[in-house]
């Protein structure tokens, strides 16, 4: 049984990659393609659940790919943090692909030249898993590149003018961040002669402080762009809203979180003495506040949600910046919560678009009467995002606030106040969506007579038509509603099972705040130049 873990570890990367090849083979048989994709993603969910169970039982495990030793070979590392992230992201990926399947069946996209969509989606899955599993900086970079390349294709699929405009900005920003990341890799390699995270962690201790800070600063800028932390977040709300609903949903849920994961990993492992903690805290505060102010100014629901996405990244940065185990546990729980909630909100927006033909608050109205189910599906994750007491958003925020209060510095208290304000403003933003889109009659909306006849699909663009002349009656396909409901329910499970999940987050944070655990798992006793490792292994 103990051999199972190293066998399973590479599968979250290998299965989707092989699946991408498989779906390409069935490019002309959309039904088989769809079936292959759903079965494989379901398999990935099972594998990730098993991984989390085994890792939680056995502790951090490292796998040397191909049997090469630590400084040369590729290392995959599974610890509680990466296993948790893998499980949550695979659940989201499965739900979104079911949603997309429902949309394709309904819209008849099968006849359109979008057979590239599913292979690319599977490549994205592989990239996300590779980034979570990577045990050295360069493979983290490669994981990022795999998921970015796939996301470029997904964002611009269909190639309408809007998507090309958003796509160019997104591609350029991502490439710049990748090049900065690569510069950071070069600097780290120059300073230490290794890129293996565990070995880096050991050798970074011997590097002069100034050089270490320089390497950290470069890496932090690169990850900050990917995670959309405030001064580097302006690209996100312009890029995400133009893509079709399933693509936006998976981007919103996962891509920024991979950046957050990279920040957590480097912060806890390579630079545990917290040189930039105060800067992280200030950036977290600004991310929260400026993000949510941006959300309030928007009238397009999808853009509004993109701004709340930026805003809530601030909470995770808050937890990381505190540097304590409690702060990290709060951040880990909040990441899991936010992936689920933000993705389900974007899926619901896709359903709103289908039901009402638009996502602009200037045009929407009367949705609560038209579809009570849709109203519930929106309300539950929206309140969850705002942090209303029984939901997991509240639990995550309380964990972070407690960690901030325990920290006791003035800056931490400012952050505590800031996150309460942000939480209230988030409630205001989603309540505004609720009152405009769901509660008021459509006739009172300033442009209520206009609507897009058909929501934008993978290929076509939508055009404005009069509300009375709609050809699509706006019923929601069963598969789309089911997958959205399932994701909302999983989000609720975070509340119901908050106890055990918080305990896993706590254990993950305890592992994280002691780099010796990770170093010991990767290097073992074998290498001579690792005083910390031998200390940690005992």
């Amino acid at each position, binding site marked *: 049984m103990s051999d199972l873990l190293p066998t399973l570890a590479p599968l979250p990367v290998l299965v989707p990659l092989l699946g991408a090849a498989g779906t390409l083979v069935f490019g002309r048989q959309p039904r088989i393609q769809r079936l292959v994709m759903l079965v494989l993603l379901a398999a990935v969910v099972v594998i990730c659940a098993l991984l989390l169970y085994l890792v939680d039982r056995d502790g951090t495990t490292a796998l040397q790919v191909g049997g090469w030793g630590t*400084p040369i070979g590729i290392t995959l590392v599974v610890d509680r943090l990466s296993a948790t992230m893998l499980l949550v992201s695979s659940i989201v990926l499965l739900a979104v692909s079911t949603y997309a399947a429902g949309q394709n069946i309904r819209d008849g996209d099968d006849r359109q030249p979008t057979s590239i969509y599913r292979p690319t989606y599977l490549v994205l899955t592989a990239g996300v898993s590779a980034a979570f599993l990577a045990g050295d900086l360069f493979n983290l970079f490669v994981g990022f590149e795999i998921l970015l390349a796939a996301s470029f294709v997904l964002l611009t699929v269909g190639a309408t003018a809007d998507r090309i*405009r958003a796509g160019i900005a997104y591609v350029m920003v991502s490439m710049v961040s990748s090049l900065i990341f690569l510069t950071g890799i070069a600097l780290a390699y120059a300073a230490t002669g290794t890129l293996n995270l565990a070995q880096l962690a050991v050798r970074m201790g011997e590097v002069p402080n100034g050089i270490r800070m320089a390497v950290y600063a470069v890496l932090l800028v690169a990850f900050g762009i990917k995670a959309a932390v405030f001064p580097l977040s302006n690209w996100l709300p312009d890029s995400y809203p133009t893509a079709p609903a399933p693509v936006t949903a998976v981007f919103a849920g996962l891509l920024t979180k991979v950046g957050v994961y990279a920040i957590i990993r480097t912060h806890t492992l390579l630079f545990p003495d917290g040189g930039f903690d105060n800067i992280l805290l200030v950036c977290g505060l600004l991310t929260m506040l400026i993000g949510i102010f941006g959300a309030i100014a928007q009238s397009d629901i999808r853009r509004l949600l993109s701004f709340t996405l930026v805003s809530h990244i601030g909470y995770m940065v808050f937890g990381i910046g505190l540097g304590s185990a409690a702060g990290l546990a709060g951040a880990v729980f909040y990441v899991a919560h936010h992936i689920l909630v933000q993705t389900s909100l974007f899926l619901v927006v896709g359903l709103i678009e289908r039901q009402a033909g638009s996502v602009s608050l200037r045009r929407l109205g009367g949705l609560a009467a038209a579809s009570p189910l849709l109203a519930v599906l929106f309300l539950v994750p929206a309140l969850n995002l705002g942090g209303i007491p029984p939901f997991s958003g509240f639990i995550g925020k309380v964990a972070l606030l407690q960690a901030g209060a325990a920290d006791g510095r003035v800056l931490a208290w400012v952050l505590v106040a800031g996150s309460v304000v942000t939480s209230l403003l988030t409630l205001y933003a989603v309540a505004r969506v609720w009152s405009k889109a769901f509660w008021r009659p459509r006739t009172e909306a300033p442009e209520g007579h206009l609507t897009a006849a058909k929501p934008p699909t993978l290929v076509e663009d939508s055009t404005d038509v009069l509300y009375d002349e709609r050809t699509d009656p706006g019923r929601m396909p069963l598969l789309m509603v089911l997958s959205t409901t399932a994701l909302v329910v999983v989000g609720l499970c975070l509340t119901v099972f908050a106890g055990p999940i918080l305990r896993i987050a706590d254990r993950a944070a305890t592992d994280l705040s002691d780099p010796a655990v990770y170093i010991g798992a990767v290097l073992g006793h074998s290498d001579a130049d690792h005083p910390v490792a031998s200390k940690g292994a005992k």
Partner: protein
Amino acid sequence: MSANLTLLILIGILVACGVYLILERAVSKMLLGMILFGNAVNLLILTVGGRGGRPPIRGEAEHTGAETADPLAQAMVLTAIVITMGLAAFVLALAYRSYILTTTEDVQNDPEDVEVATRREGEDPER
């Protein structure tokens, strides 16, 4: 480790030119800037690679002369070059598509952003 000063200066010049070009609005110029920047980073990796004769793949003890280079740096540069090239091809396709659709390949402002920016003070976003 002794670094090569000429190469370091060259890297500086390449980065400066690259960043200058990335600040342009035309996609093709941005792409050129990106490629310059990418090459600068590749050179940086090569420059900072391990000492000659101590390749990690053969162990890090002093046992060979200076006739072997650091294979790890070469492998990383190779990977980075391939990635940059693939993405450059993709950006070229994007620029072409943008030119077909809008007869220009400049990056446009986000229309919703412009709308929010031109909204008058106190104006209800839903009006």
